[in-house]
């Protein structure tokens, strides 16, 4: 089977300083969920930004090939994300909720976003939007469509932003700490919704997080990043039960666990 995404020998630098990504290679299949775990400065955020051609100012590709199915997105500094970015590959950030336009209602910006990518009537776009919001577990989606961002809680905005990102039924969703800013109970809700989305639409995902527990709960495979390289990558169960790298063990031991008889009756 042709991989959904393949990355070969990708390197990125910031303003000619040392490499933020070093000769990084991996590939993923359709509908697969990959968790990328690492601490601040490990290059994990740079990686998913690089995949979408959205490097922050000063960022520069110094080599490597990124292909998305049949399409080559990057080769020898020649890049072409046209027709892919935002539609076939979507992205959510840790604070995506704050990227909503504060002076327009959710409904107006949501419908505009849909009409940018699809040729549909506004009414159909409205129905689609309402359904997507309901799918993200938001009560009373009609009210949310009428609301302005300031009238919603952080968790509601984040779920709205995720709903908007997946409305185009992207084949790949890139998520940078999508649940870190949410309350713990909401966090689980959003993680479940993302898993459902994969079952329903077959969306592949790359989820970047500093908490290896988040990756363990969502991902089929986990990649552990440090200093711009993948020090370990493998099946989730294998990585958490038999970590090969010292650094992976360190990340695993840092996860706060409940003490006491958790699995009992």
């Amino acid at each position, binding site marked *: 089977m042709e991989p959904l995404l393949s990355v070969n020998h990708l390197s990125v630098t910031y303003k000619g300083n040392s490499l933020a990504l070093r000769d990084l290679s991996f590939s993923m299949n359709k509908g697969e969920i990959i968790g990328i775990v690492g601490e601040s400065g490990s290059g994990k955020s740079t990686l998913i930004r690089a995949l979408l051609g959205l490097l922050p100012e000063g960022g520069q590709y110094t080599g490597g090939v990124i292909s998305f199915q049949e399409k080559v997105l990057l080769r020898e500094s020649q890049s072409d994300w046209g027709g892919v970015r935002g539609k076939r590959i979507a992205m959510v950030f840790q604070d995506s909720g704050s990227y909503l336009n504060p002076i327009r209602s959710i409904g107006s910006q949501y419908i505009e976003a849909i009409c940018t990518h699809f040729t549909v009537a506004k009414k159909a776009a409205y129905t689609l939007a309402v359904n997507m919001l309901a799918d993200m577990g938001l009560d009373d989606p009609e009210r949310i469509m009428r609301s302005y961002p300031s009238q919603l809680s952080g968790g509601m905005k984040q779920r709205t932003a995720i709903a908007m990102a997946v409305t185009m039924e992207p084949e790949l969703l890139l998520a940078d700490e999508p649940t870190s800013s949410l309350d*713990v109970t909401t966090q689980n809700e959003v993680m479940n919704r993302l898993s459902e989305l994969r079952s329903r639409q077959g969306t592949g995902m790359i989820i970047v997080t500093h908490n290896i527990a988040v990756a363990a709960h969502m991902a089929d495979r986990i990649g552990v990043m440090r200093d711009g390289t993948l020090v370990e990558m493998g099946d989730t169960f294998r990585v*958490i039960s038999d970590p090969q790298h010292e650094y992976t063990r360190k990340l695993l031991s840092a996860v706060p666990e409940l003490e*006491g*008889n*958790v699995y009992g009756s």
Partner: protein
Amino acid sequence: MAHKGLPILELINLCKTYELKGHRAVDALKAVHLQLYPGECLGIVGESGSGKSTLARCVTHLERVTSGQIQYRQQDITRLNGKALRYQRKQIQMVFQEPSAIFNPRMKVGAFIREPLINYKVMKGQQAEQEVLRLLERVGMSAATADKYPHELSGGEQQRAVIARAIGVEPDIILFDEATSALDVSIQQQILDLLVELRKETGISSIFISHDLAVVQQISDRIAVMYQGEVVEVVESSQLTSSANHPYTRSLMASVLSVREMKHKMQERDEKLEQERDQEQELDEKQDQEQVEVFQESLSG
């Protein structure tokens, strides 16, 4: 942990109502009753809007309570002002979530840690300089850090410096409000280790507020669970999983992301799959055997 003697801090029927013009009044705290005993670490857990930060702000006099009483060593400190309030502030220090917001970007770390020592006249001049170095070492940082600016430190190092400043005036109580929430989990663990160590050495009383139940359990002796402005349950940390009753506490427990639990689940799943495979194989072998028997019978017959 047994409660030793009288509480060092007691909140009695504490209420806080926010009244905004043109909006409904919001009851952020509804009749909160809590005690903190000497040397104890009291954990407070809850989600956004549960009132845990309002509680912290009331205890440290950053907000005035609407009604109720705060008692510090059996003295009512609810409505202190002026000099008495200033002294009281020294006794209860606070560490917040976002260390980078606490620093003056133009003030070096050494000066930042020295400031309260001078302000509260704990010590001056050369002695304070020495104390800064001692405090830095205390929180696991080198003396060279004193000459750095806040932006040269990582988030974890910044939080260490904030803690050094807080313990410098030797307060009775330190209140941590989501003090490790903005940090990576691995850095969080280092800070938690530091807090446990400091507590062992100084026997300081503390209140540790967080949304993360597993973290709160790890560090505190008792846990108060807050929900919509009320304390719905107080449990001993060691008894949490066995004795927590409130459905909200249970839902918080269920939302702790555990690697151990995941491993457990995956192991069970794998074992089940293996069992099924074994059973299938047995069944296949049995069927094969039966066919052979039938064939042999037909031959002999």
